[in-house]
């Protein structure tokens, strides 16, 4: 009887958005706690932890991604207002930005072209299909932007969303080590590089290092989203001619 009752409850819950939403928040809460306990070690990235936990639970209970997303879409939706919200830290760095606008503009544009160009070229070099190449091309832009671009250039938007997350995690986990190794110590420089390559997940990591690195990373993420949307479709056509 108890078994039967639990099944009924499960059937009810899995059909409502409550479960997906709550699961996402609980999983993130646990992963974030683990991250803090590991003294903010970038290897224990909270996105990796929560995604792994959620996929395990969904697979174990036989829940489809569509059912899960019914609830998780409320969290996903907040990417939009969060993108708008980046205007605030950006504005707070206005005076420093005025001073540095030319280096920022040059490194941003080069970074965006290198990010898209190298991923298309490398995916091609290692035998990736055209769909994979096009899904990888906008991987350094923030999720909603990258998905829109992928759709336009012939990639798979939902696969791109995953690749965007993996890229962000790679940048967040390896970024500070790479900068130390390159002896890049200035937080505005580190921030720009992090934001161009690893968008919001890198920016979240940058804010933990310092507010200045976070603001510059947010700036780079916002402006490179802009630049990626404008440049990548054109770059794809150009590379198709060049590599043909």
């Amino acid at each position, binding site marked *: 009887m108890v078994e039967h009752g639990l099944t009924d409850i499960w059937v009810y819950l899995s059909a409502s958005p409550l479960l997906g939403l709550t699961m996402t928040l609980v999983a*993130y809460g646990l992963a*974030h706690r683990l991250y803090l306990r590991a003294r903010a070690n970038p290897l224990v990235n*909270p*996105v990796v932890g929560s*995604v792994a936990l959620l996929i395990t639970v969904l697979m174990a209970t036989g829940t489809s991604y569509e059912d899960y*997303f019914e609830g*998780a879409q409320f*969290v996903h939706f*907040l*990417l939009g207002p*969060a*993108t*708008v*919200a980046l*205007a*605030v830290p*950006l*504005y*707070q760095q206005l005076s420093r930005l005025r*001073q540095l606008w030319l280096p920022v503009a*040059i490194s941003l544009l*080069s*970074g965006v072209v*290198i*990010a898209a160009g*190298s*991923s298309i070229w*490398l*995916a091609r070099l*290692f035998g*990736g299909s055209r769909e994979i190449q096009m899904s*990888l091309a906008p991987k350094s832009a923030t*999720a909603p932007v990258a998905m*829109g671009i992928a759709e336009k250039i012939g990639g*798979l938007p939902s*696969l791109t969303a*995953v690749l965007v*997350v*993996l*890229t962000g995690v*790679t*940048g967040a986990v*390896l970024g500070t080590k790479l900068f130390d190794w390159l002896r*890049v110590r*200035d937080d*505005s*420089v580190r921030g720009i*590089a*992090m934001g*161009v*390559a*690893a968008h*919001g*997940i890198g*920016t979240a*990591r940058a*804010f933990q290092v310092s507010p200045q690195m976070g603001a510059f990373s947010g700036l780079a993420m*916002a402006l490179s*989203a802009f630049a990626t949307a*404008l440049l990548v479709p054109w770059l794809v056509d150009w590379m198709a001619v060049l590599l043909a």
Partner: protein
Amino acid sequence: MQFLNGITLLLVYQLVGEVVVRLLDVPIPGPVLGMVMLFVTLAIRGATPEPVAQASNALLSHLSLLFVPAGVGMMVHFDRIAAEWLPITLALLISTLVTMAATALIMQFTTRWLVGHREREGQDHG
């Protein structure tokens, strides 16, 4: 109430951004245009209103949470990723590291070259 006003304002900017992008058929995502418009507004006003600062802070302090639902989407693409794991892994890893390193070095070089020594001294104290 402050937080509510702030989040409402962010949504209004996003909405205006989405509408303008569709009306003018520009290839830029709506939220990105919304961000640019909010930035211009703040620059003209010369200050960040408290509600906007609060809402922005709340959203940005847990930015990584917002990527979790998209990341879970990996489960739908397991087959595809398994079939092409080598090009995906290598392209993603190498390209991300190269992009980060190149952007950092270009920024470092151009800052020293274009902004000069005064800037560098300032950073040593900061």
